């Protein structure tokens, strides 16, 4: 129904600045210089720092200097350990991506270009602070020195997999690393992190929680429920939004980025919101340390938007050349997180190209050795899986009759497939 004297309504459907074959266009992104953003006291009222949700905290400048009030002034030793964890994550991703392409597993997800997000945060948190990650924070486990073979066993779903081959590759669970079981259902972990933090506060504990989700999934109701709970109970939690610009093929505009920032979601909830350069490991460290201090001193939650770029496809099942400009990765204005931290260490005279190249070789060897060890436990689809009967374990603490019956049924099917004793896997 239209009225002739009124203009017709128009539905706005967002469109990214560049599609395949077009020139990458980041002109709409306002990059503030490093060092210019003020750093409020971590106990300050969130109402006094709303500008930070629309700004961009940066520490590393284009020359590799660490500048401004957010400079965390880390020792060269810590900087080198961060660089090493980031490079190891990259080497791990590289090897596991190839393993998927070689048919050794069904699926993999790289974090290329986003290593600073998880590793900067892991270094700023205490090791027993509880992390509720999404699927691209493998860097947390690596920063916490988790066993690479254990991670690979999970990726291969083999007989060494602690999770018994039940989860899609990369959906780790590592309670001993204070790393919560990863869900494929997006953003469920955010209210869970808030609940963990509320429990910690209710118990007078000193540990805090942190969660990560992508910018695309901030559209989920769970995200908003989490922010409401976080502000209501002033939960000691750090809520990270990794804005890597792309949710599979949907650019950030489909989560609302054309109209505001993701850090600005905090403003409406009365939560401290920081928007930071996610490719700057020192900015990630500094923002996380600030938020952790705020949480640990009972000043409540912080929402951190990590402004970064997903340099690869969403997963091994994705082909980004089908929906975005192939130039974007090289033209991303915030650079590469590993290269930037490396440049900083070189600039302060604590690192050099030769050491870096040697470290890359060493890390590739370390990953290769881990992969060989994990492959001894089997690769996906080659029979070295968990015993069949484990399928029915852990549905409940005690197995009810109907699962016992179904387990017997499954075993009789296996017996029909491999009738002779000793034939086939058991």
């Amino acid at each position: 129904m239209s009225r002739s004297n009124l203009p017709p309504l128009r539905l706005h459907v967002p469109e990214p600045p560049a599609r395949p074959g077009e020139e990458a266009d980041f002109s709409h992104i306002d990059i503030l210089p490093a060092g210019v953003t003020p750093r409020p006291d971590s106990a300050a009222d969130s109402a006094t720092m709303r500008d930070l949700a629309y700004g961009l905290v940066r520490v590393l400048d284009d020359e590799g200097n660490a500048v401004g009030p957010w400079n965390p002034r880390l020792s060269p030793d810590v900087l080198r350990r961060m660089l090493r964890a980031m490079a190891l994550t990259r080497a791990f991703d590289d090897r596991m991506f190839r393993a998927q392409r070689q048919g050794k597993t069904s699926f993999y997800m790289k974090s290329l270009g986003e290593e600073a997000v998880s590793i900067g945060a892991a270094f700023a948190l205490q090791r027993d602070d509880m992390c509720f990650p999404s699927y691209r924070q493998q860097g947390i486990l690596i920063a916490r020195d988790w066993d690479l073979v254990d991670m690979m066993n999970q990726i291969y779903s083999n007989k060494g997999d602690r999770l018994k081959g039940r989860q899609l590759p990369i959906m780790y669970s590592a309670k001993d690393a204070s790393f919560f079981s990863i869900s494929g259902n997006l953003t469920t972990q955010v209210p869970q992190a808030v609940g963990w933090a509320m429990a910690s506060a209710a118990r007078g504990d000193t540990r805090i929680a942190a969660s990560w989700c992508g910018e695309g999934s901030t559209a989920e109701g769970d995200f908003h429920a989490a922010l409401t709970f976080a502000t209501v109970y002033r939960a000691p939690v750090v809520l990270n939004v990794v804005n890597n610009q792309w949710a599979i093929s949907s650019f950030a505009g489909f989560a609302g980025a054309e109209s505001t920032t993701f850090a600005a979601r905090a403003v409406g909830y009365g939560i401290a919101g920081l928007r930071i350069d996610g490719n700057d490991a020192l900015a990630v460290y500094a923002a996380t340390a600030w938020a952790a201090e705020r949480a640990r001193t009972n000043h409540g939650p912080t929402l951190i938007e990590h402004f970064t770029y997903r340099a690869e496809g969403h997963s091994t099942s994705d082909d980004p050349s089908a929906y975005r400009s192939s130039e974007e990765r090289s033209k991303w204005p915030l650079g590469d997180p590993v290269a930037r931290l490396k440049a900083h260490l070189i600039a302060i005279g604590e690192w050099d190209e030769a050491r870096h190249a040697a470290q890359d070789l060493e890390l590739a060897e370390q990953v290769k050795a881990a992969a060989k060890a994990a492959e001894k436990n089997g690769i996906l689809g080659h029979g070295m899986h968990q015993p069949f009967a484990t399928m029915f374990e852990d549905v409940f603490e005690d197995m009810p009759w109907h699962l016992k019956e179904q387990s017997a049924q499954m075993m009789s099917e296996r017996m029909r497939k491999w009738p002779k004793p000793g034939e086939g896997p058991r």
Partner: protein
Amino acid sequence: MPDAPATNMNMIEAINDALSVAMERDLDVTVLGEDVGYFGGVFRATAGLQKTYGKTRVFDTPITECGIVGVAVGMAAYGLRPVPEIQFADYIYPALDQLVSEAARLRYRSAGEFPMPITVRSPFGGGIFGGQTHSQSPEAIFTHVCGLKTVIPSTPYDAKGLLLAAIEDNDPVIFFEPKRIYNGPFDGHYDRPVQPWAKHPASLVPSGHYTIPLGKAALVREGQDLTVLAYGTMVHVALSVVEELGVDADVVDLRTLMPLDIETIESSVKKTGRCLVIHEATRTGGFGAELSALVQERCFYYLEAPVERVTGFDTPYPHSLEWAYFPGPIRIGMAIEKVMKD
């Protein structure tokens, strides 16, 4: 029954007593939900708990069921034993992802690293003129989900013992409370005076701690000619109809739908040769379909007649036509006539 002194309670009081006993015994038990704190819940099930156990163990929440259950999952991951209340079962759907994909699966997907000892309490069922958003019986949605237990009490005594067992269970439990019988048993005759619980033997609730194991049905009436499988409000309606019609029936109160007490069901049907399944929930894909299939699979050669189902109709719960919808004495009576024929 335990030897502890017993008092007459309605179902609300029994649930409140169970929560209090659980909180007294275990510091990890934490109650959260809309209006459960200072006010004590819209049905008063949590009355007085905040005063006794403090605001950090009993607290009001924002109106987001997704958030309530999501936060409960996080609290369970920390090591607490949360008991969230969803104010009406009709409101539980925003929490489905957290229940179905998270709470129910976490033990499995983490291979035991993160068990989820959560008990979600929620009033359910109709017969109170609640209209379509305060009357539903969504139990079959949850029995269909692997990793969840579903418990439905029918008396104050059972409510307390089952709720304590549910809270102490290390797996997530959906605990549906039939709100029509919160204040008294219901014979299905909406036009007759309401009976208080005080006259019912199962309103005598022992003080202190006791549990009723999950997965054990109760044979609440013994007979030879018919097996009636029911739970919640419908147990009382079934008993009343069976008495009125003079049918010599076993009436089995399932109490727990998952895990199900198949032994009690099987032995009863093999004895009687006839089976009637009753629930208030909608018919298609309801838990009655599962019961009917199980009886058919396991007792076929003992059956004298096809298994009959009496259920709510496959419509939303209608406000003004509530009593035409409710599977009351007439519908049950007609089904009994059919199942008892030849």
